[in-house]
C-alpha cells in the first residue's frame, strides 16, 4: 500500500499497536513511529504505520483557505 491517508486513532496500546478509523472503516496500525500520538489524534497512515501526526490547527486553516477561495471565485 503506497498510499498514505489521514485517519483518526481509535485504539492505541502500550505495545504501539492499535487501530485507526478512516471514514467509518477500521484499520490496524502501528504507532511506534509517532510515540507522542494519543487516542483521538489524527495521523497519516502508510503501509500500516502512522508516520506523522496531523496538526489540526493547520488543517482547519487550510480548509478555511479553500472555503474562502471557493467563495471568492465566481
Amino acid at each position, binding site marked *: *500500500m*503506497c*498510499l498514505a*491517508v489521514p485517519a483518526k486513532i481509535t485504539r492505541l496500546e502500550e505495545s504501539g499497536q492499535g*487501530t485507526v478509523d*478512516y*471514514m*467509518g*472503516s*477500521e*484499520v*490496524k496500525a502501528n504507532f511506534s513511529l509517532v510515540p507522542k500520538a494519543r487516542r483521538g489524534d489524527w495521523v497519516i*497512515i502508510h503501509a*500500516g504505520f502512522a508516520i506523522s501526526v496531523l496538526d489540526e490547527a493547520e488543517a482547519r486553516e487550510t480548509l478555511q483557505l479553500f472555503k474562502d477561495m471557493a467563495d471568492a471565485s465566481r
Partner: protein
Amino acid sequence: MKKISLELGGGGRLMRDFIADRIIPAFGNSILDELSDAGLLPGGLAFTTDSYVVDPLFFPGGDIGRLAVNGTVNDLVVSGAEPLYFSLAFILEEGLDGGVLDRVIRSIRGAAKAAKVRIVTGDTKVVRRGQGDKIYINTAGIGRSVARPRAAKIRPGDKIILTGTLGDHSLAVMLARGEFGLVSNVRSDCAPLLFLLPLWKRGALWMRDITRGGLATVLFELAERIPYPILVEEEKIPLSRPVRAAGDLLGIDPLYMACEGKAVVIAPASRAGELLRRIRANPLGRKAAIIGEVQDRVGRSGELLLQTASGGLRLLEPLTSELLPRIC
C-alpha cells in the same frame, strides 16, 4: 495466448479479446454476435448462463447461492426479459461439509423464491479433493422477453442512470477474505433487479448490470456500440463510505469494482426523471442518480470521458489487469 492466465476471468480486455478471438470465430451466429448479457431467441425467449466461483462462499450480505440466482436473474432483466425457469448445476469438491452445502441450497431456494424463478433441471458432479474449490455453481436461465434493448436508438442527450452505490460486493468479498487488516460494515449488494423490468415499457433504451470490471467496463462496452461519446460526472457517482475509504486506503478505484445488484439504465432526457423516481422508490434503488449522458460536445465516438470533481476532463479506460480474483 498460450496459457490461460487468471486475468482472463477478470472481465477486462483479455476477456473481450478471448471472446473475439476464440469464441465468436468458433460459434458466431447472429444471436451470439450481439454479445448481450442474454441470448435473445426468436419466439420471444431470452437465454443466459453464468458460473459462480466466489471465494469465500459466505460473506456479509450474501453467499455463492444467492449470487448464482441473482446474477442470472439480472442478466435476463437487463436484456429485457422476465426470468422464469432456471437450471442449477453443482461441481462439488470431495470432502465438502454437508452442512455447508445445505446452507447454500437453502440460500438458493430463498433467492429463487424472491426472484420468482423455478429451478426445473440440474446436475451434480463431485471431483477429487484438491481439484475444485469447495463449490462451483452454474445456473442457466430462460426468460420471456418483455422488450428488446435498443442501443441503436440512443442519441446525444440521453441520460445515464446508475441505480446505486458502486463496489460494495467487491469490497465485502475482499474483506471477508481477511486480507487487509481492514474492518468495515460493508455488505455485498447482491440482489435481484426485477424492479427494473417495468422500466422497459417506460422509456428505458438499454440496461446492463454492473459486475466484474465495474461501471467503467459497462460504460466502455456501451461506448463501443454507439457513435457518440459518453460523459460521466465523478461528483454524481454514489459511493458508500466503506468503498470510498477502501479506495483511498487500498488504492482500488471504485469505478472498476464489481457489484452484484446495481445496473446502468439509459433513457431519453424526457423520461429519465420519471425513471429515476421509480428506481428510487424501490429500497434497492434509494441512492440512484443520473451520473452522466450520451453527448456530442466533447470527445470522439467510442470515448468514455470523466469530468473530475476538480473540473478536469479525462478518458476512462476499460479494466486492463485483474483487480481481484474470485469475487463472483
